[in-house]
Protein backbone atom coordinates (compact mmCIF):
# COMPACT_ATOMS: atom_id res chain seq x y z
CA UNK A 1 0.00 0.00 0.00
CA UNK A 2 1.41 3.42 -0.92
CA UNK A 3 1.67 6.08 1.70
CA UNK A 4 -0.89 8.28 -0.04
CA UNK A 5 -3.39 5.44 -0.03
CA UNK A 6 -2.57 4.67 3.58
CA UNK A 7 -3.23 8.24 4.60
CA UNK A 8 -6.47 8.29 2.65
CA UNK A 9 -7.78 5.29 4.51
CA UNK A 10 -7.95 7.18 7.77
CA UNK A 11 -9.46 4.60 10.02
CA UNK A 12 -8.81 1.27 11.62
CA UNK A 13 -5.97 -0.06 13.70
CA UNK A 14 -3.69 -0.36 10.71
CA UNK A 15 -3.86 3.38 10.15
CA UNK A 16 -3.54 4.22 13.82
CA UNK A 17 -0.55 1.94 14.22
CA UNK A 18 1.01 3.56 11.16
CA UNK A 19 0.60 7.03 12.65
CA UNK A 20 1.78 5.92 16.10
CA UNK A 21 4.99 4.34 14.77
CA UNK A 22 5.79 7.32 12.55
CA UNK A 23 5.06 9.68 15.45
CA UNK A 24 7.45 7.72 17.65
CA UNK A 25 10.13 7.89 14.93
CA UNK A 26 9.41 11.56 14.26
CA UNK A 27 9.53 12.71 17.91
CA UNK A 28 11.74 10.56 20.16
CA UNK A 29 13.64 9.25 17.14
CA UNK A 30 14.19 12.67 15.61
CA UNK A 31 15.41 14.06 18.91
CA UNK A 32 17.76 11.10 19.45
CA UNK A 33 19.26 11.46 15.97
CA UNK A 34 19.67 15.24 16.39
CA UNK A 35 21.23 14.88 19.84
CA UNK A 36 23.62 12.10 18.78
CA UNK A 37 24.62 13.89 15.57
CA UNK A 38 25.31 17.03 17.62
CA UNK A 39 27.37 14.99 20.10
CA UNK A 40 29.42 13.59 17.24
CA UNK A 41 29.97 17.05 15.77
CA UNK A 42 30.91 18.41 19.20
CA UNK A 43 33.65 15.75 19.42
CA UNK A 44 34.93 15.93 15.86
CA UNK A 45 34.63 19.45 14.45
CA UNK A 46 38.12 20.85 13.87
CA UNK A 47 37.88 23.90 16.14
CA UNK A 48 38.10 24.81 19.81
CA UNK A 49 36.03 22.73 22.22
CA UNK A 50 33.50 25.44 23.07
CA UNK A 51 33.16 26.44 19.43
CA UNK A 52 32.59 22.84 18.34
CA UNK A 53 29.91 22.43 21.02
CA UNK A 54 28.22 25.67 19.97
CA UNK A 55 28.22 24.92 16.25
CA UNK A 56 27.00 21.37 16.94
CA UNK A 57 24.13 22.73 19.04
CA UNK A 58 23.05 25.11 16.29
CA UNK A 59 23.07 22.29 13.72
CA UNK A 60 21.01 20.00 15.95
CA UNK A 61 17.96 22.22 15.38
CA UNK A 62 18.26 21.61 11.65
CA UNK A 63 18.63 17.81 11.99
CA UNK A 64 15.57 17.27 14.20
CA UNK A 65 12.86 18.71 11.90
CA UNK A 66 14.47 17.02 8.89
CA UNK A 67 14.17 13.60 10.56
CA UNK A 68 10.59 14.37 11.66
CA UNK A 69 9.55 15.20 8.11
CA UNK A 70 11.33 12.13 6.76
CA UNK A 71 9.58 9.88 9.31
CA UNK A 72 6.25 10.85 7.80
CA UNK A 73 7.44 10.51 4.21
CA UNK A 74 9.26 7.16 4.51
CA UNK A 75 7.88 4.22 2.51
CA UNK A 76 6.29 2.61 5.54
CA UNK A 77 6.04 3.05 9.32
CA UNK A 78 8.55 0.27 10.02
CA UNK A 79 10.98 1.81 7.54
CA UNK A 80 10.64 5.12 9.42
CA UNK A 81 11.17 3.55 12.81
CA UNK A 82 13.88 1.17 11.62
CA UNK A 83 15.68 3.94 9.78
CA UNK A 84 15.75 6.12 12.85
CA UNK A 85 16.93 3.25 15.05
CA UNK A 86 19.70 2.23 12.64
CA UNK A 87 20.83 5.85 12.22
CA UNK A 88 20.82 6.41 16.01
CA UNK A 89 22.79 3.22 16.62
CA UNK A 90 25.32 4.19 13.95
CA UNK A 91 25.72 7.69 15.41
CA UNK A 92 25.88 6.33 18.96
CA UNK A 93 28.69 4.00 17.90
CA UNK A 94 30.62 6.88 16.36
CA UNK A 95 30.06 9.08 19.42
CA UNK A 96 31.25 6.25 21.63
CA UNK A 97 34.45 5.71 19.61
CA UNK A 98 35.11 9.45 19.66
CA UNK A 99 34.82 9.43 23.46
CA UNK A 100 31.62 11.49 23.66
CA UNK A 101 30.03 9.30 26.33
CA UNK A 102 33.02 9.49 28.67
Amino acid at each position, binding site marked *: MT*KAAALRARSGWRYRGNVALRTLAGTVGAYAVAALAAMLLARTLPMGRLEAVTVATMFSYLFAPAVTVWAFLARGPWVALGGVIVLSALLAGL*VWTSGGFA
Partner: protein
Amino acid sequence: MSGASAMVRDGVRQAMAWLHGWTGLLLGYVLFVMCLAGTLSVFKPEIGRWMRPEVTAQADSKSAIVAATGWLSKNAPGSTGWYLTAPDGRANTVEASYDQGSDYLYRALDPVTGAPVARETLGGEFFYRLHFELEIPYPWGRLLASLAAMVMLVALVTGIIAHKRIFKDFFTFRPAKGQRSWLDGHNATGVLAMPFHLMITFTGLLTLASLNMPWPISAGYGDKVMEMYEALAPGSVTRPAAGKPASLAPIAPMLTAAERAFGGGHVGRVYVFNPGDAASVVTVYQSDADTIGYMRGQASFDGTTGRLLKSWVERRPAMRTYQVAYGLHMARFAPMATRWLYVLGGAMLTLAISTGMVLWIAKRRERQPLSIGNRILERLNVGVITGVPLGAVAYFIANRLLPIGMAGRPDAEVSVALWTAAAAVLAGLALRPAIGWPLMMGLLAFACALAAVLGPVWSTEPVLLAGNLLFLAMAGALALIVRRQMRRRNAPTPARRRMREQPA
Protein backbone atom coordinates in the same frame (compact mmCIF):
# COMPACT_ATOMS: atom_id res chain seq x y z
CA MET B 1 5.04 15.00 -15.79
CA SER B 2 4.25 11.36 -15.24
CA GLY B 3 1.16 10.41 -13.31
CA ALA B 4 3.13 8.38 -10.80
CA SER B 5 5.44 11.20 -9.79
CA ALA B 6 2.50 13.58 -9.53
CA MET B 7 0.80 11.09 -7.24
CA VAL B 8 3.90 10.79 -5.08
CA ARG B 9 4.14 14.57 -4.95
CA ASP B 10 0.49 14.91 -3.94
CA GLY B 11 1.03 12.20 -1.35
CA VAL B 12 3.95 14.15 0.09
CA ARG B 13 1.87 17.29 0.24
CA GLN B 14 -1.02 15.48 1.82
CA ALA B 15 1.21 13.87 4.44
CA MET B 16 2.82 17.22 5.21
CA ALA B 17 -0.54 18.99 5.41
CA TRP B 18 -1.72 16.32 7.85
CA LEU B 19 1.43 16.70 9.97
CA HIS B 20 1.16 20.51 9.81
CA GLY B 21 -2.40 20.37 11.14
CA TRP B 22 -1.69 17.99 13.99
CA THR B 23 1.58 19.60 15.12
CA GLY B 24 -0.13 23.00 15.04
CA LEU B 25 -3.09 21.72 17.02
CA LEU B 26 -0.95 19.90 19.58
CA LEU B 27 0.67 22.96 21.13
CA GLY B 28 -1.18 25.74 19.30
CA TYR B 29 -2.47 27.42 22.46
CA VAL B 30 0.93 27.33 24.14
CA LEU B 31 2.48 28.82 21.01
CA PHE B 32 -0.23 31.47 20.91
CA VAL B 33 0.63 32.58 24.47
CA MET B 34 4.37 32.50 23.69
CA CYS B 35 4.03 34.51 20.48
CA LEU B 36 1.76 37.14 22.01
CA ALA B 37 3.97 37.55 25.09
CA GLY B 38 7.10 37.56 22.93
CA THR B 39 5.67 40.23 20.65
CA LEU B 40 4.84 42.39 23.66
CA SER B 41 8.35 41.79 25.05
CA VAL B 42 9.87 43.67 22.11
CA PHE B 43 8.54 46.77 23.87
CA LYS B 44 9.52 45.62 27.35
CA PRO B 45 11.29 48.91 28.27
CA GLU B 46 8.41 51.02 26.95
CA ILE B 47 5.85 48.84 28.78
CA GLY B 48 7.87 49.46 31.95
CA ARG B 49 7.61 53.20 31.39
CA TRP B 50 3.87 53.09 30.76
CA MET B 51 3.42 51.08 33.96
CA ARG B 52 5.59 53.42 36.10
CA PRO B 53 4.29 56.82 35.00
CA GLU B 54 5.49 58.56 38.20
CA VAL B 55 9.14 58.06 37.23
CA THR B 56 10.00 61.07 35.11
CA ALA B 57 13.64 61.50 36.14
CA GLN B 58 16.25 60.49 33.58
CA ALA B 59 19.88 59.66 34.20
CA ASP B 60 22.64 58.22 32.07
CA SER B 61 23.39 54.53 32.54
CA LYS B 62 26.48 55.01 34.67
CA SER B 63 25.09 57.47 37.20
CA ALA B 64 21.90 55.39 37.48
CA ILE B 65 23.98 52.30 38.33
CA VAL B 66 25.92 54.34 40.91
CA ALA B 67 22.63 55.47 42.50
CA ALA B 68 21.26 51.91 42.49
CA THR B 69 24.36 50.35 44.08
CA GLY B 70 24.34 53.16 46.65
CA TRP B 71 20.78 52.32 47.71
CA LEU B 72 21.41 48.57 47.65
CA SER B 73 24.58 48.93 49.78
CA LYS B 74 22.41 50.38 52.53
CA ASN B 75 19.35 48.19 52.07
CA ALA B 76 20.56 44.80 50.79
CA PRO B 77 24.23 44.42 51.81
CA GLY B 78 23.82 40.76 52.84
CA SER B 79 22.53 39.67 49.44
CA THR B 80 24.42 37.00 47.48
CA GLY B 81 24.13 39.07 44.31
CA TRP B 82 22.66 42.19 42.77
CA TYR B 83 21.79 41.80 39.10
CA LEU B 84 21.30 45.25 37.60
CA THR B 85 20.28 46.38 34.13
CA ALA B 86 21.12 49.98 33.38
CA PRO B 87 18.59 52.33 31.79
CA ASP B 88 19.20 53.48 28.23
CA GLY B 89 17.29 55.81 25.96
CA ARG B 90 14.28 53.47 26.27
CA ALA B 91 13.92 52.31 29.89
CA ASN B 92 14.41 55.01 32.53
CA THR B 93 14.77 52.85 35.65
CA VAL B 94 17.43 50.40 36.81
CA GLU B 95 16.04 46.86 36.76
CA ALA B 96 17.31 45.08 39.85
CA SER B 97 17.04 41.43 40.86
CA TYR B 98 18.49 40.49 44.23
CA ASP B 99 17.87 38.19 47.14
CA GLN B 100 16.93 39.46 50.55
CA GLY B 101 16.58 36.84 53.23
CA SER B 102 14.86 33.95 51.52
CA ASP B 103 13.04 36.18 49.02
CA TYR B 104 14.12 36.90 45.49
CA LEU B 105 13.06 40.41 44.52
CA TYR B 106 12.62 42.10 41.17
CA ARG B 107 12.39 45.87 41.47
CA ALA B 108 12.67 48.96 39.34
CA LEU B 109 14.97 51.51 40.98
CA ASP B 110 14.72 55.25 40.47
CA PRO B 111 17.61 56.40 38.22
CA VAL B 112 18.45 59.38 40.48
CA THR B 113 17.72 58.28 44.06
CA GLY B 114 18.32 54.53 43.53
CA ALA B 115 15.27 53.71 45.69
CA PRO B 116 12.49 51.38 44.46
CA VAL B 117 9.75 53.26 42.59
CA ALA B 118 6.46 53.64 44.49
CA ARG B 119 4.20 51.87 41.97
CA GLU B 120 5.70 48.39 42.34
CA THR B 121 5.16 46.30 39.25
CA LEU B 122 6.92 43.68 37.16
CA GLY B 123 6.21 45.85 34.12
CA GLY B 124 7.30 44.22 30.87
CA GLU B 125 9.22 41.57 32.81
CA PHE B 126 5.92 39.68 33.24
CA PHE B 127 5.45 39.24 29.48
CA TYR B 128 9.16 38.54 29.01
CA ARG B 129 9.12 35.70 31.56
CA LEU B 130 5.73 34.44 30.36
CA HIS B 131 7.20 34.17 26.86
CA PHE B 132 9.62 31.38 27.79
CA GLU B 133 8.58 30.23 31.28
CA LEU B 134 4.79 30.23 30.87
CA GLU B 135 4.25 30.81 34.62
CA ILE B 136 5.45 27.23 35.23
CA PRO B 137 8.30 26.54 37.72
CA TYR B 138 11.86 25.97 36.49
CA PRO B 139 12.79 23.94 34.49
CA TRP B 140 9.36 22.70 33.34
CA GLY B 141 8.12 25.98 31.87
CA ARG B 142 11.26 26.40 29.82
CA LEU B 143 11.12 22.76 28.72
CA LEU B 144 7.50 23.15 27.61
CA ALA B 145 8.47 26.33 25.74
CA SER B 146 11.34 24.41 24.08
CA LEU B 147 9.01 21.59 23.08
CA ALA B 148 6.53 24.09 21.66
CA ALA B 149 9.32 25.76 19.68
CA MET B 150 10.42 22.40 18.23
CA VAL B 151 6.83 21.66 17.26
CA MET B 152 6.64 25.12 15.72
CA LEU B 153 9.75 24.42 13.64
CA VAL B 154 8.15 21.21 12.32
CA ALA B 155 4.87 23.06 11.66
CA LEU B 156 6.72 25.73 9.67
CA VAL B 157 8.69 23.24 7.57
CA THR B 158 5.68 21.03 6.88
CA GLY B 159 3.58 24.13 6.15
CA ILE B 160 6.06 25.18 3.47
CA ILE B 161 6.19 21.70 1.90
CA ALA B 162 2.41 21.31 1.98
CA HIS B 163 1.97 24.58 0.18
CA LYS B 164 1.11 24.25 -3.49
CA ARG B 165 1.42 27.74 -4.82
CA ILE B 166 3.38 29.68 -2.27
CA PHE B 167 3.75 32.76 -4.47
CA LYS B 168 0.25 32.87 -5.86
CA ASP B 169 -1.45 32.32 -2.50
CA PHE B 170 0.44 35.25 -1.23
CA PHE B 171 -1.75 37.56 -3.32
CA THR B 172 -4.97 35.69 -2.73
CA PHE B 173 -7.61 36.82 -0.30
CA ARG B 174 -11.21 35.76 -0.58
CA PRO B 175 -13.10 37.50 2.22
CA ALA B 176 -16.35 36.22 3.75
CA LYS B 177 -15.97 32.76 2.21
CA GLY B 178 -15.69 30.72 5.38
CA GLN B 179 -12.89 28.17 5.27
CA ARG B 180 -11.27 29.77 2.19
CA SER B 181 -10.98 33.15 3.92
CA TRP B 182 -9.39 31.61 7.00
CA LEU B 183 -6.99 29.65 4.79
CA ASP B 184 -6.06 32.79 2.86
CA GLY B 185 -5.52 34.71 6.09
CA HIS B 186 -3.46 31.87 7.54
CA ASN B 187 -1.37 31.68 4.36
CA ALA B 188 -0.84 35.43 4.15
CA THR B 189 0.30 35.85 7.75
CA GLY B 190 2.28 32.62 7.66
CA VAL B 191 3.99 33.08 4.30
CA LEU B 192 4.58 36.84 4.21
CA ALA B 193 6.82 36.79 7.27
CA MET B 194 8.13 33.22 6.80
CA PRO B 195 11.82 34.22 7.05
CA PHE B 196 11.02 35.96 10.34
CA HIS B 197 9.03 32.96 11.62
CA LEU B 198 11.88 30.56 10.85
CA MET B 199 14.50 32.90 12.31
CA ILE B 200 12.62 33.59 15.53
CA THR B 201 11.81 29.90 16.14
CA PHE B 202 15.35 28.69 15.44
CA THR B 203 17.00 31.40 17.54
CA GLY B 204 14.40 30.92 20.27
CA LEU B 205 15.39 27.26 20.58
CA LEU B 206 18.99 28.36 20.76
CA THR B 207 18.37 30.67 23.74
CA LEU B 208 17.28 27.62 25.78
CA ALA B 209 19.91 25.30 24.30
CA SER B 210 21.55 24.29 27.60
CA LEU B 211 18.14 22.90 28.68
CA ASN B 212 16.72 21.47 25.46
CA MET B 213 19.95 20.26 23.80
CA PRO B 214 22.48 19.61 26.60
CA TRP B 215 23.98 16.56 24.83
CA PRO B 216 26.66 18.27 22.72
CA ILE B 217 27.70 20.10 25.89
CA SER B 218 28.05 16.82 27.78
CA ALA B 219 29.91 15.30 24.81
CA GLY B 220 32.38 18.19 24.88
CA TYR B 221 32.68 18.79 28.61
CA GLY B 222 31.42 15.69 30.39
CA ASP B 223 30.44 16.65 33.92
CA LYS B 224 32.71 19.72 33.94
CA VAL B 225 29.97 22.08 32.75
CA MET B 226 31.43 24.96 34.78
CA GLU B 227 34.43 24.89 32.43
CA MET B 228 32.08 25.55 29.55
CA TYR B 229 30.50 28.55 31.26
CA GLU B 230 33.94 29.95 32.00
CA ALA B 231 34.97 29.53 28.36
CA LEU B 232 31.67 31.07 27.25
CA ALA B 233 32.30 34.31 29.14
CA PRO B 234 36.05 34.56 29.78
CA GLY B 235 35.61 38.04 31.26
CA SER B 236 33.52 36.71 34.17
CA VAL B 237 34.99 35.71 37.50
CA THR B 238 33.36 33.37 40.00
CA ARG B 239 34.85 32.95 43.42
CA PRO B 240 33.41 31.95 46.78
CA ALA B 241 32.64 34.50 49.47
CA ALA B 242 35.46 35.12 51.96
CA GLY B 243 33.10 35.29 54.92
CA LYS B 244 34.61 38.60 56.03
CA PRO B 245 32.51 41.75 55.66
CA ALA B 246 33.91 44.58 53.55
CA SER B 247 32.51 47.54 51.70
CA LEU B 248 32.43 48.09 47.96
CA ALA B 249 34.89 50.39 46.25
CA PRO B 250 33.33 53.26 44.24
CA ILE B 251 31.50 51.82 41.21
CA ALA B 252 31.85 54.74 38.79
CA PRO B 253 35.58 54.20 38.00
CA MET B 254 34.90 50.50 37.33
CA LEU B 255 32.17 51.41 34.83
CA THR B 256 34.49 53.82 33.04
CA ALA B 257 37.26 51.20 32.96
CA ALA B 258 34.79 48.62 31.60
CA GLU B 259 33.73 50.94 28.78
CA ARG B 260 37.39 51.42 27.93
CA ALA B 261 37.84 47.61 27.89
CA PHE B 262 34.86 47.34 25.50
CA GLY B 263 36.57 49.72 23.11
CA GLY B 264 34.05 52.47 23.71
CA GLY B 265 30.95 50.22 24.15
CA HIS B 266 28.30 51.14 26.70
CA VAL B 267 27.49 49.68 30.11
CA GLY B 268 24.48 47.35 29.85
CA ARG B 269 24.26 45.11 32.88
CA VAL B 270 26.19 45.13 36.15
CA TYR B 271 26.28 42.06 38.37
CA VAL B 272 27.66 42.44 41.89
CA PHE B 273 28.43 39.08 43.53
CA ASN B 274 28.61 38.90 47.34
CA PRO B 275 28.42 42.70 47.61
CA GLY B 276 29.09 42.97 51.36
CA ASP B 277 31.96 40.47 51.37
CA ALA B 278 35.73 40.87 51.12
CA ALA B 279 35.76 38.64 48.01
CA SER B 280 33.05 40.56 46.16
CA VAL B 281 33.20 40.73 42.35
CA VAL B 282 31.67 43.35 40.06
CA THR B 283 31.10 42.13 36.50
CA VAL B 284 30.08 44.67 33.87
CA TYR B 285 28.47 43.49 30.62
CA GLN B 286 28.39 45.52 27.46
CA SER B 287 25.00 46.94 26.44
CA ASP B 288 23.05 44.67 24.08
CA ALA B 289 21.92 47.81 22.25
CA ASP B 290 25.49 48.34 21.00
CA THR B 291 25.66 45.45 18.50
CA ILE B 292 23.45 42.61 17.25
CA GLY B 293 25.62 40.11 19.15
CA TYR B 294 24.31 39.32 22.62
CA MET B 295 26.66 39.68 25.65
CA ARG B 296 29.61 40.74 23.50
CA GLY B 297 31.93 42.02 26.21
CA GLN B 298 32.46 41.54 29.95
CA ALA B 299 34.85 43.08 32.46
CA SER B 300 35.23 41.87 36.06
CA PHE B 301 36.57 43.87 38.97
CA ASP B 302 37.62 43.10 42.51
CA GLY B 303 34.75 44.64 44.46
CA THR B 304 36.73 45.94 47.43
CA THR B 305 39.67 47.47 45.52
CA GLY B 306 38.06 48.21 42.14
CA ARG B 307 41.00 46.53 40.39
CA LEU B 308 40.28 45.07 36.92
CA LEU B 309 40.56 41.26 37.17
CA LYS B 310 39.64 40.14 33.66
CA SER B 311 38.02 41.55 30.56
CA TRP B 312 36.92 40.04 27.29
CA VAL B 313 35.45 41.16 23.99
CA GLU B 314 34.17 38.23 21.89
CA ARG B 315 35.98 37.70 18.58
CA ARG B 316 35.85 33.88 18.08
CA PRO B 317 33.90 33.38 14.81
CA ALA B 318 31.71 30.51 16.03
CA MET B 319 30.88 32.36 19.23
CA ARG B 320 30.11 35.55 17.33
CA THR B 321 27.71 33.56 15.16
CA TYR B 322 26.01 32.17 18.24
CA GLN B 323 25.80 35.62 19.85
CA VAL B 324 24.36 37.15 16.69
CA ALA B 325 21.73 34.38 16.51
CA TYR B 326 20.91 34.95 20.19
CA GLY B 327 20.86 38.73 19.72
CA LEU B 328 18.56 38.42 16.71
CA HIS B 329 16.03 36.77 19.00
CA MET B 330 16.36 39.29 21.83
CA ALA B 331 16.07 42.26 19.43
CA ARG B 332 17.74 44.56 21.94
CA PHE B 333 20.01 45.91 19.20
CA ALA B 334 17.03 47.00 17.12
CA PRO B 335 16.49 50.69 16.42
CA MET B 336 12.92 51.98 16.30
CA ALA B 337 12.03 50.93 12.73
CA THR B 338 13.48 47.43 13.13
CA ARG B 339 11.67 47.07 16.44
CA TRP B 340 8.36 47.72 14.70
CA LEU B 341 9.27 45.08 12.09
CA TYR B 342 9.79 42.62 14.96
CA VAL B 343 6.38 43.53 16.37
CA LEU B 344 4.83 43.14 12.93
CA GLY B 345 6.52 39.75 12.43
CA GLY B 346 5.46 38.60 15.90
CA ALA B 347 1.89 39.81 15.37
CA MET B 348 1.73 37.94 12.06
CA LEU B 349 2.98 34.74 13.68
CA THR B 350 0.41 35.16 16.46
CA LEU B 351 -2.28 35.66 13.81
CA ALA B 352 -1.01 32.71 11.76
CA ILE B 353 -1.36 30.50 14.83
CA SER B 354 -4.83 31.76 15.74
CA THR B 355 -6.13 31.57 12.16
CA GLY B 356 -4.64 28.08 11.98
CA MET B 357 -6.58 27.04 15.08
CA VAL B 358 -9.80 28.51 13.68
CA LEU B 359 -9.10 26.90 10.31
CA TRP B 360 -8.89 23.47 11.92
CA ILE B 361 -12.52 23.89 12.98
CA ALA B 362 -13.75 25.72 9.83
CA LYS B 363 -12.38 22.92 7.64
CA ARG B 364 -14.09 20.18 9.61
CA ARG B 365 -17.36 22.02 10.02
CA GLU B 366 -17.83 22.38 6.28
CA ARG B 367 -17.28 18.65 5.78
CA GLN B 368 -19.64 17.25 8.41
CA PRO B 369 -21.13 18.13 11.82
CA LEU B 370 -18.36 18.67 14.39
CA SER B 371 -17.42 15.83 16.73
CA ILE B 372 -17.63 16.50 20.46
CA GLY B 373 -13.83 16.98 20.66
CA ASN B 374 -13.87 19.52 17.88
CA ARG B 375 -16.86 21.30 19.44
CA ILE B 376 -14.81 21.74 22.63
CA LEU B 377 -11.86 22.97 20.55
CA GLU B 378 -14.13 25.44 18.77
CA ARG B 379 -15.08 26.93 22.13
CA LEU B 380 -11.53 26.80 23.49
CA ASN B 381 -10.51 28.82 20.45
CA VAL B 382 -12.90 31.57 21.52
CA GLY B 383 -11.70 31.49 25.12
CA VAL B 384 -7.97 31.36 24.43
CA ILE B 385 -7.73 33.66 21.41
CA THR B 386 -9.73 36.40 23.15
CA GLY B 387 -8.88 35.47 26.75
CA VAL B 388 -5.09 35.67 26.62
CA PRO B 389 -5.10 39.22 25.18
CA LEU B 390 -7.86 40.09 27.68
CA GLY B 391 -5.62 38.91 30.52
CA ALA B 392 -2.78 41.03 29.13
CA VAL B 393 -4.96 44.16 29.01
CA ALA B 394 -6.33 43.40 32.50
CA TYR B 395 -2.71 43.44 33.69
CA PHE B 396 -2.36 47.03 32.45
CA ILE B 397 -5.71 48.03 34.00
CA ALA B 398 -4.75 46.44 37.35
CA ASN B 399 -1.55 48.48 37.22
CA ARG B 400 -3.62 51.65 37.33
CA LEU B 401 -6.35 50.51 39.74
CA LEU B 402 -4.49 48.62 42.50
CA PRO B 403 -3.50 50.96 45.35
CA ILE B 404 0.13 52.13 45.46
CA GLY B 405 1.97 50.71 48.47
CA MET B 406 -0.28 47.65 48.66
CA ALA B 407 1.57 44.57 49.96
CA GLY B 408 2.47 42.10 47.20
CA ARG B 409 1.37 44.52 44.51
CA PRO B 410 3.43 43.04 41.62
CA ASP B 411 2.03 39.57 42.28
CA ALA B 412 -1.50 40.96 42.54
CA GLU B 413 -1.18 42.46 39.05
CA VAL B 414 -0.07 39.10 37.68
CA SER B 415 -2.94 37.35 39.49
CA VAL B 416 -5.44 39.72 37.89
CA ALA B 417 -3.99 38.88 34.47
CA LEU B 418 -4.07 35.11 35.02
CA TRP B 419 -7.54 34.99 36.62
CA THR B 420 -8.97 37.19 33.89
CA ALA B 421 -7.58 34.89 31.22
CA ALA B 422 -8.85 31.82 33.09
CA ALA B 423 -12.33 33.33 33.47
CA ALA B 424 -12.34 34.19 29.77
CA VAL B 425 -11.47 30.61 28.81
CA LEU B 426 -14.34 29.35 31.00
CA ALA B 427 -16.71 31.91 29.46
CA GLY B 428 -15.61 30.79 26.01
CA LEU B 429 -16.41 27.19 26.94
CA ALA B 430 -19.81 28.13 28.37
CA LEU B 431 -21.04 30.32 25.52
CA ARG B 432 -22.17 29.32 22.03
CA PRO B 433 -19.32 30.41 19.71
CA ALA B 434 -21.72 32.53 17.66
CA ILE B 435 -22.32 34.58 20.82
CA GLY B 436 -18.91 34.00 22.41
CA TRP B 437 -16.83 35.55 19.63
CA PRO B 438 -18.56 38.95 19.39
CA LEU B 439 -19.15 39.15 23.14
CA MET B 440 -15.57 38.39 24.14
CA MET B 441 -14.07 40.53 21.41
CA GLY B 442 -16.38 43.36 22.45
CA LEU B 443 -15.17 42.89 26.01
CA LEU B 444 -11.56 43.02 24.79
CA ALA B 445 -12.31 46.24 22.88
CA PHE B 446 -13.84 47.73 26.01
CA ALA B 447 -10.85 46.67 28.13
CA CYS B 448 -8.44 48.29 25.65
CA ALA B 449 -10.44 51.53 25.75
CA LEU B 450 -10.51 51.43 29.56
CA ALA B 451 -6.73 50.96 29.73
CA ALA B 452 -6.26 54.00 27.48
CA VAL B 453 -8.63 56.09 29.60
CA LEU B 454 -6.83 55.08 32.79
CA GLY B 455 -3.51 55.91 31.07
CA PRO B 456 -4.63 58.70 31.69
CA VAL B 457 -5.85 59.49 28.23
CA TRP B 458 -4.90 63.18 28.44
CA SER B 459 -1.23 62.46 29.20
CA THR B 460 1.22 64.03 26.77
CA GLU B 461 4.27 62.13 28.02
CA PRO B 462 5.47 60.44 24.79
CA VAL B 463 5.53 56.80 25.97
CA LEU B 464 2.17 57.11 27.74
CA LEU B 465 0.67 58.86 24.74
CA ALA B 466 1.94 56.18 22.36
CA GLY B 467 0.66 53.39 24.63
CA ASN B 468 -2.75 55.00 25.01
CA LEU B 469 -3.04 55.55 21.26
CA LEU B 470 -2.18 51.88 20.64
CA PHE B 471 -4.85 50.79 23.13
CA LEU B 472 -7.40 53.06 21.43
CA ALA B 473 -6.43 51.78 17.98
CA MET B 474 -6.89 48.17 19.15
CA ALA B 475 -10.23 49.05 20.73
CA GLY B 476 -11.36 50.63 17.46
CA ALA B 477 -10.18 47.75 15.27
CA LEU B 478 -11.86 45.18 17.54
CA ALA B 479 -15.09 47.17 17.61
CA LEU B 480 -15.14 47.18 13.80
CA ILE B 481 -14.64 43.40 13.68
CA VAL B 482 -17.44 42.87 16.20
CA ARG B 483 -19.75 45.10 14.14
CA ARG B 484 -19.02 43.03 11.04
CA GLN B 485 -19.65 39.81 12.95
CA MET B 486 -22.97 41.08 14.25
CA ARG B 487 -24.02 42.14 10.78
CA ARG B 488 -23.05 38.81 9.27
CA ARG B 489 -24.98 36.85 11.88
CA ASN B 490 -28.22 37.85 10.22
CA ALA B 491 -26.91 37.31 6.68
CA PRO B 492 -26.78 33.78 5.20
CA THR B 493 -23.64 31.87 6.15
CA PRO B 494 -21.13 31.07 3.40
CA ALA B 495 -21.97 27.37 3.53
CA ARG B 496 -25.67 28.00 3.02
CA ARG B 497 -24.96 30.53 0.30
CA ARG B 498 -22.81 28.07 -1.61
CA MET B 499 -25.44 25.39 -1.37
CA ARG B 500 -27.94 27.78 -2.87
CA GLU B 501 -25.60 28.74 -5.70
CA GLN B 502 -24.58 25.21 -6.64
CA PRO B 503 -27.47 22.84 -6.15
CA ALA B 504 -26.39 19.22 -6.16
